C-alpha cells in the first residue's frame, strides 16, 4: 500500500471514530428547573436536558434564534404539544408531568432532540 493510501486509511478510520465520539458520545448536561426555564433554539436546544419536579406546573419558554425551517416547530409528544416557534419570540409551554421518567422533545422533523427528566 502506498503512503497516500495508508494515510487515507488512517485518517478515514480516525474520522469515523471521531464522528462517532463527537455526535454519539456526548455527555448530557442536565439543568435543574423549579418553575420556569428559557430554552434557546439555535442549532439545537440550550439547555438540552432539563430536570423538573413531578406534579408541579413548569413553564418552558422556547426562544427560536435559528431561522432554519427544521426548527420552526417544537413537539412534546408525551404532552401532546406541537407549537410553532416564531423567530426571536418567547413561546411559553406549560406542562405538569404526573409521572416520573424521561420525556424527549424534538423539532417538527424529528432531527433535533431535547430531553425533560421528571423526578
Amino acid at each position, binding site marked *: 500500500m502506498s503512503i497516500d493510501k495508508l494515510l487515507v486509511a488512517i485518517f478515514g478510520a480516525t474520522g469515523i471514530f471521531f464522528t*462517532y465520539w463527537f455526535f*454519539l458520545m456526548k455527555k448530557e448536561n442536565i439543568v435543574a428547573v423549579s418553575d420556569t426555564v428559557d430554552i434557546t433554539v439555535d442549532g*439545537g436546544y440550550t439547555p438540552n436536558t432539563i430536570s423538573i419536579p413531578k406534579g408541579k406546573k413548569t413553564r418552558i419558554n422556547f426562544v427560536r434564534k435559528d431561522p432554519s*425551517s*427544521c*426548527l420552526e416547530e417544537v413537539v412534546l409528544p408525551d404532552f401532546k404539544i406541537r407549537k410553532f416557534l*416564531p*423567530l426571536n*419570540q418567547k413561546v411559553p409551554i406549560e406542562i405538569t408531568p404526573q409521572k416520573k421518567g424521561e420525556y424527549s422533545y424534538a423539532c417538527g422533523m424529528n432531527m433535533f432532540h431535547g430531553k425533560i427528566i421528571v423526578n
Partner: protein
Amino acid sequence: MSEVKKSFPIKGMHCASCVRVLERALKKVDGVAEAIVNLATEKATVTCNPEKVTDKNLTSAIANVGYTALLAEEMRTEDEEKKEKQKELQTLRNKVIVSLVLGGLILWGSFPGIMNTAPAFLQNFWIQLLLATPVQFWAGFEFYRATIPALKHRTANMDTLVVIGTTVAYAYSAFVTILPQIPKSIGIEPTPYFDVATIIIGLILLGRYFEARAKAGTSEAIKKLIGLQAKTARVLRLRSSVIASTAKQSRVNGIASSPASPDPRNDNRYIEVDIPIDQVQIGDIIRVRPGEKIPVDGVIVEGESSIDESMVTGESIPVDKTKGDTVIGATFNKAGTFTYKATKVGQKTMLAQIIKLVEEAQGSKAPIQRIADLISSYFVPIVIMLAIATFAVWYILGPQPAFLFAMLNTVAVLIIACPCAMGLATPTAIMVGTGKGAEHGVLIKDAESLEIAHKVNTVIFDKTGTLTKGKPEVTDIITINFSVIASEAKQSHGIATGSSNSRNDILRLAASLEKGSEHSLAEAIVKKAEEKKLVLSKVERFKAVPGHGVEGVVDAKRLVFGNKRLMGKEGIEILKQVQDDINKLESGGKTVMMLAVESHPEFTRLASRAKRVSGSREIPKQVRKDIQLVGLIAVADTVKESAKEAIEQLNNLAIETVMITGDNQRTANAIAKKVGIKRVYAEVLPQEKEKILKQVQYDKGRKIVAMVGDGINDAPALAVADIGIAMGTGTDVAIEAADITLINKDLRSVAQAINLSKKTMRTIKLNLFWAFGYNVILIPVAMGVLYPFFGLLLNPIFASIAMATSSVSVVSNSLLLKRYKI
C-alpha cells in the same frame, strides 16, 4: 392620538377577586383608559393610548400582582406564523431561481456532451467560480447557518450533510481553478465541479420550497376550525349598565350599537350591542338573525330556526331548533331569528374544545413512529461515517483517478441521504388524518388511538342511547275487542287495534294517570298525548306501585296502569289472545303496559264503542267484573335510523359486532335482530360491563375491541376498551373518557373512523417504506456498491434530484389523504 384596544389571555386566574385585582392593576398603568377582565374567557381587554402603554408595561403590571399575561406571545403566533411562512417562501423562491439559473449556466459550460454548445466564457473556470460563489454562500447560507450552531451542540441534521457535500465539491473546484498546477503535478486533470455544488444547492432548495408549501396544507384543518369562530356577538344587556361603557368602547372599536332594538321580552330597558366575542359572558342573551353565525354555545330562549351545524358536527342536514334546544357556537343560522342564553364561552365552547383536541392529537406521537425516531437520532452521524468510509475505500481500492471517484461518491452519499423524509413520514399523515376526521365530526384523541383503531376487529355497542335513541316512544295502542274477548269461543281474532278514537281514549286515560309519575316510560306516554293534543284530566289519589305501575282516580273512575304483575295483583285475568299480543309486542323489543278501569260509565262508553266497531252484541266478559282490562300501550326505545347501516358497514369490514345492555334478554334480542347484531349480552349490570368487555377481549385469542357508548354512563367500559368511542352529547364533548368522540352522533361514523384509521396507517406505512427504502437502497448505490457488477455510479446531481423529491413525495402522499372520502 386615538385609543386602541388590546385583548390578551391571562394565566393564573381562579376567582372573581382575581378579576378585580387585575382590573385595578391594569387601570393603574399610565395611559390605560379602560380595563375589562373576563374570568370565563381568562382574557383582559384593555383600551389604552398606544404611545404611553407598551406590552411590557402591561405584562409587568400583571406580573406584579402574581399573574401572567400572554401578550405578544401566543396572541401573535398565528399571524407571525403566516407572515414568516410567506417571507420564507418568497426568499426561498428567489434563492431557487438564482441558484438554478447560475447552476444551469455552469452546467452548460462544464457538462460533457453539452459544454461544446456553450459560449466560451461559460467554459472559463474563473467565470464558473464567480457564478458558483454566490450560490454556495448566499443561496446556501441557510445550510451553513443551521450547521454551525448544530455542531456546537454536537448534533447534525440534513443541513450538515448538504454543507459537507457541497463544500467539498466547491472547495475542490475552487482549489483546482486557483492552483491547477498542484493536481497536475500528481497526475490529476484540474477539472472543477462547480455544477455539482450549485445544482445540488438549487435542487435541494427547490425541494424545500415545495415541501414548505405542501406542509402548510397538512395543518389546514386546524386553521379552518379556528377560522369558523364568529368575531362579534349581538348581546342584549341592561341599557343602564352598559350604555355608557359600551358606547364608549364601541366608538373606540368601531363597533355598532343599536339602542332601539327590543329585547326578547319587549323590555326597553334592554339594549342590543355588538361586542367582540371574547367579551361575551355566561348568561348573556344573544340575538342571532338569518344568515349569521352563532357566536358561542347556549340555549334558545325565544324563537326557532334551522341551523347548519355541518362545520362543527359534520352533520350535513340542517337541524331545526326551538326554545330549550342547545345551539353550538360557530354554526350557521339559516332561517329564523332567535335569542339564546350563552352557557359556554371562551375556551369552554364546543369549538374551542374541538380545536384543543385536534391540536393535541396533532402534537401526539404514533407508536409506529418509534422506529423512525430511533433511526433518526443516529442517522446523520452514520451517514457521515459511511461517507468517510466511501472516500477511503474508493481512494484505496478504486480505479484511477481514484481521488475524483472517491470525492464524487462521497459527495453523492452525503447528498442522497434524506433524514427529513423519515421525520415527516408519520406526523404529516397524522395531521392530515386527524384534521380530516375533525371535519366530519370524528374527533380522535391522539395518534396512538388513530393507530390502534385500524386493528379493531370487534365493536361492542351499548344499547340505550347508542343504538337506540335513548328516549322511549309510544309505538302501539291497542284497545281490547270486548265482544271477541267475551266470546271465548271466537279466539281467531283475539285483539283488534280499535278505532282511532278509542285508542285516544286509552292514551288520554293513561296519560292523565302518568302525568304524576316520574317513571321514564310515563314521559313517553304523556308526550304522545300532548302530541295528539289530548286534554288530560286531573288525577286524584295517585299512587305509584314500585316495580308494578301506577293507580289513581281520573274523572271519578279508578284506573290501574302497569305491567302484568300489577294486573295479577288486581285479579284481572289476561286472556290468551291478549297474552299472545303482549308476547308479540315484547318480542319486538317493546315494553307493554296495561290499562284497567273499574266498571263505570266511561268504561261503558268505551265498551259500547268497541262493540260498535266489532259489530258484536255480546256483553264483554270483563264488564261483569268490577275492574276491566281496556287497553294496552306499548312503549319502545326506537332504534336510530343509522344503526342498521352502521352495523352492516362494520360487518362488511369483517368486524364482529356485539351488543351489551342492562335490558331483558327478549328486548335485547329484538333490538339486536333489528340492527343485525348476532352476539348479545343482556341483563348486564352497569358494573359488569367492564368484565364482559374483558371477556370479549380475550375470547378465542386477543381481540382488539372498540366500545361505543354515550361517554358518560359508559366511561369505565370506554376506558377498558382498546378504543373507547363516545357519541357526542350536545355540547359536552366526552373528551376524557373516549379515544374517539363522534360529535356528529352518527353511528355510521364508527366504520368511518376505523376506515380513516386504516387509510392513515396505510399512508404512514407507505411513507415510511419510501423514506426508509429510499435511504436503504440509494445510500449503498451512491457508495458505489453496483460499480463492481454493473459499472454504475450515482452522479451527485442525480442524488440531489432524488433527495429533493423524497421529502416532497412523503408530504404529498400524506396530503392525498385529504382526497379520501370519509
